[in-house]
């Protein structure tokens, strides 16, 4: 007889049972099994503490970088929360080797063309007035890189052009044009005569240093953002050829270096809760500002949070922090006119108010989860999972209570918008909720 115990049939039976058992084994569902729960002896306790002290203050940044943001804000807005905000926008123009203007050319008109963006703050239904002025000095970025909300350059006191209009920010095919006929004619003549001032880049930028868009004579009630790019912020010189059939022609002068385009923001907090923020070294505690703290983009206001009682966690033995949540609620009724920011970042900061974006566990910037309840506004809140930050702070068994967190827009929004948030500090408090396991 060949083979030992197991013949052909035996092998079949054996493999049948082995496979059968593997199949049956995989049927077992254990994740819903509850019987026996009276026998288990828990060796851990999960506790949540949300009574940690959170000290809040509003920090005013020395300056906010506003160059290269592809947006030009012009206008003024005033309320009793952030006082008056006035914004001017600077830019220069690009040199091109201009093509020859024909002999029969006759100058018609000129204008700067402004295109709307989706970013507007304030009452956009009121009459708006914008004037444009020639700069008397060249735009030189600080350290050859950045320009700030505080930067400014000299310009001619008389306007090169001016326009008043009712804004139509949501119509994409409407643009605002500021007539600059005199400047246009001057340029037209220089180009036609091949003047040396339009013959090289150097000569040209010496001659035409740049422009500032600023509020005109009317009392503006809004800050309107226009596109700032070489294609969308341009000056057009219109002329025609004097023929039997007049031929219309134009010359386009484009916005120059994006790094030279920036917004200058002037704000006045005198009549607000933050009136003394500059005197107090650009930081004022919530207790002095009506138990609210303030966030505003291009002014550069950021709420700062510190956790002076965090050290107390360390007094306990045998614990692990499983989750730490930071819950921030907006001041009720503070966002009727201005909607709440839908995405808030969080920064780690120190005594000098330097800041660095706090990342989540996937090494991406952490964004608050935002609960918005239209009907129950008291449920509106921002929640951050700051577990890894808290664990890091506690890691070396020492908590520097000067360190903290700042709540703010992402860097790009901060530098290119006037989005705002008022954080409630008392009813309810800003909560740090720590879930920890003791064993």
């Amino acid at each position, binding site marked *: 007889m060949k083979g030992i115990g*197991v013949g052909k049939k035996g092998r079949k039976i054996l493999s049948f049972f082995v496979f059968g058992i593997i199949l049956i084994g995989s049927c077992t569902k254990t994740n819903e099994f509850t019987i026996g729960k009276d026998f288990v002896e828990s060796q851990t306790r999960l506790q949540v503490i949300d009574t940690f002290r959170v000290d809040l203050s509003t920090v005013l940044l020395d300056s906010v970088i506003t160059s290269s943001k592809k947006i030009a804000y012009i206008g003024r807005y005033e309320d009793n929360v952030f006082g008056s905000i006035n914004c001017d926008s600077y830019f220069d123009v690009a040199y091109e080797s201009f093509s020859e203007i024909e002999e029969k050319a006759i100058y018609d008109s000129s204008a700067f063309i402004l295109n709307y963006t989706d970013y507007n703050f304030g009452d956009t239904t009121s009459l708006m007035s914008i004037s444009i002025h020639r700069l008397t000095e060249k735009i030189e970025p600080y350290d050859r890189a950045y320009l700030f909300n505080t930067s400014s350059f000299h310009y001619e006191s008389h306007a090169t052009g001016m326009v008043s209009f009712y804004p139509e920010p949501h119509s994409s095919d409407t643009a605002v044009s500021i007539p600059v006929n005199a400047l246009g004619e001057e340029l037209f003549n220089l180009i036609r005569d091949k003047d040396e001032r339009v013959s090289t880049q150097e000569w040209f930028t010496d001659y035409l240093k740049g422009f500032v868009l600023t509020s005109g004579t009317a009392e503006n009630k809004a800050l309107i953002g226009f596109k700032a790019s070489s294609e969308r912020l341009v000056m057009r010189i219109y002329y025609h050829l004097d023929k039997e059939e007049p031929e219309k022609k134009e010359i386009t002068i484009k916005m120059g270096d994006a790094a030279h385009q920036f917004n200058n923001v002037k704000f006045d907090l005198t009549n607000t809760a933050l009136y003394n923020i500059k005197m107090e070294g650009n930081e004022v505690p919530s207790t002095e500002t009506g138990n609210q703290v303030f966030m505003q983009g291009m002014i550069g206001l950021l709420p700062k949070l510190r956790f002076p009682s965090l050290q107390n966690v360390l007094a306990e033995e045998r614990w692990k922090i499983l989750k730490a949540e930071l819950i921030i609620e907006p001041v009720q009724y503070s966002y009727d006119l201005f909607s709440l920011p839908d995405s808030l970042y969080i920064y780690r900061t120190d005594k000098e108010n330097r800041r660095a974006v706090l990342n989540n566990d996937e090494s991406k910037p952490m964004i608050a989860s935002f609960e918005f309840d239209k009907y129950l506004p008291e449920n509106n809140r921002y929640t951050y999972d700051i*577990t890894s930050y808290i664990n890091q702070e506690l890691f070396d068994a020492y908590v520097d209570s000067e360190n903290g967190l700042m709540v703010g827009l992402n860097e790009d929004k901060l530098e290119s918008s006037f989005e705002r948030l008022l954080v409630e500090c008392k009813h309810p408090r800003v909560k740090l909720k720590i879930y920890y396991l003791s064993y």
Partner: protein
Amino acid sequence: MLKLTKTYILIIFVLILGPGAVFSQTTTSPYSIFGLGYLEGNSTGPSKAMGGTGLAFLSDRYINSMNPASYTGIDSLISVFELGLFGKYTIYSTKHENQSLLNANLKYIMMGFRITPWLATSFGFSPYSSVGYTINTTSPIEGSTLEYPKTFSGEGGVNQVYIGGSVNLIKGLSLGFNAAYLFGNITHRESSELFSYSLEDATYISNFNIDYGLNYQLDIKKWKYNIGLAYGSSKKLKTNNVTTIETNYETEVLKSRKYKYSIPQNIGAGFAVSKGFFRAGVDYEWSNWENVEFTNSYLRTRNSGRYSFGVEFPSPGLNKGTSRMVLYRFGAEYSGSYMIIDNIPINYGAITFGAGFPLKGVISVLNASVELGQNGTTKKDLFRERFVTINLDLSLWDLWFRKRKYD
């Protein structure tokens, strides 16, 4: 032939060396949370169909590891290789609800043969006890009114690899021993998916253990009368604990916990009668659990007692005595287990039946049995397990010594 015997040995060693893979979690019962877990018992194929009765039975064409003195009964011309599998369907009931689980696994692998006419040996691998449970519950978040889901689970158990020997001293009297190395680990874990943590308490267990056995056979006319005795002394097990807490942010090994595990003193006696292909037997086993300490505060222990009987008879008619003979078996078992929870003893009872089917054309038998039983009670807040277990035992015989001559 020798080659194939080597194959068996190889299989055994592979399974011994990788026991985690094959022998993990052979039980699924919340009762296994206590002590060493569910005690697997050491009855094999035919005994399983007879209520686990076998203390007085001599091995014949299968290995009876319940009593090491039985090895002398192994047919002198063959080596036996045994593989056990089981599948179990359990309904767990409390006063309020029923839940059910299926589980299945390999049970044992063993081999036995005679060395000389008066000396026989067996070796193999089988579980001593096993732990396997998953209990989902909720726990309060202190400082709030909320609860969170939490899972308690356990796995592992104690395995034994043994080598036994048995000698036939004088006519009818055999003495034997099993020397086993007990090893394994028992892991209890509590964890929460929601809060991403687990506390894992793993205890590695090991020690050597020896059991002794005696069998005396008296032949009166055509009847054989057997008495079997088995004895194992109590033994403390060596433990080494590693407790680890793991969160999303760190893993920390905590101070080792001290656990005392021991196996109890065990005394068993059995009586059997047989004539031709008929046999019947009764067993009684006593284990001194009262002296074994447990760390779970819900549990109190008592000395356990197990009673069983079993009957085996051949298929009547033409096939009797031929290679096509089927052996039928039945039996019952009752065990007052060592566990007392909340003053309620946890008792076990089962009826069994089965048959040994010869595999056509090969010198092997497939022993199949069904066990219907229950464990525990729904009194107070306890639960009862009612189960159907199907045991399959493949007994492969190799005509080792006879065949070799012709190779």
